[in-house]
């Protein structure tokens, strides 16, 4: 097709990989959308369903659009990606864990102060 240097050959997918990635992403987006709009699942389950659909779509886009895993050894891109992923997991899970605990403990304190409810009007409204 072209006589470019070898390094360029693996940096762009094929038409087929873009079409597959695009079609799957659209389908997953629409499925997630209709699950929410039609209230297919109860409020407890829907978060997990949406998270699963989201993760699947992110992986699909990483593979078909960003060509992750398409490189030859020693997989530097994938190594950097894995390191980024572990930093993100520590960061996000850690933040949520700490702040949930903090919220829980402050809320517990506030329920002791029943005589002064104006203090907790803005803590957490919840869905």
């Amino acid at each position, binding site marked *: 097709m072209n006589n470019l240097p*070898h390094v360029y050959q693996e940096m762009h997918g094929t*038409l087929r990989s873009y079409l597959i990635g695009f079609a799957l992403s659209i389908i997953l987006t629409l499925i997630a959308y209709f699950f*929410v709009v039609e209230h297919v699942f109860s409020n407890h389950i829907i978060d997990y369903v949406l998270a699963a659909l*989201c993760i699947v779509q992110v992986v699909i886009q990483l593979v078909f659009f*960003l060509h992750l895993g398409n490189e030859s050894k020693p997989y530097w891109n994938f190594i950097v990606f894995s390191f980024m992923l572990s930093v993100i997991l520590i960061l996000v899970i850690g*933040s*949520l864990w700490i702040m949930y605990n903090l919220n829980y403990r402050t809320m517990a304190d506030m329920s002791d102060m029943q005589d002064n409810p104006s203090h907790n009007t803005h803590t957490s*409204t919840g869905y």
Partner: protein
Amino acid sequence: MTTNTALHTSDDHHDDRSDKTIFGFWVYLMTDCILFATLFAAYAVLHNNTYGGPSAKDLFSPPFALAETLILLTSSFTCGLALQAAYAGQKNKTLLLFGITFLLGISFLTLELKEFTHLVHEGSSWQRSAFLSSFFTLVGSHGLHITSGLVWMTVMIGHIIFRGLTLSTLRRLTCLSLFWHFLDVVWVLIFTIVYLMGVK
């Protein structure tokens, strides 16, 4: 994506340089992911702290967010096709496809700004509550990335017109398309976490 075998086999210096440039750009994208992760963590922690003001359920409209998502997804797809046309040496097709990507990006940005101005006019600006501060920071950062991506794309369209599809242009186009696909991945997360989980 990058091939380290090329480092040893090729006598062409462009090879080596492209390889390192694209790997360097990949590392930048990964650090940008960490930036977005902090903003997502802030949003996840603060999304219930509405200070008596409107919550996500009151503010966001699912069809509007779906339209934004489909537009950005399509632009990511046309960007990939544009890169392929560039590698095949088809200059006019590359320009056409990057032009379409640019227009889709502009429509996305217009929709996002329309939503922001609507929220501010309703009195739901970033000053209203911690929830809205984190929302505007997260989605606004994504919008800023999109804006810089569009500026970059304009520059690259100029490059293609005046310099043609040279090796250095191809290297830059590869970085640009990685950036654009990356922004689409971030938007998938925003769409799910902010909009779908918010209005459920």
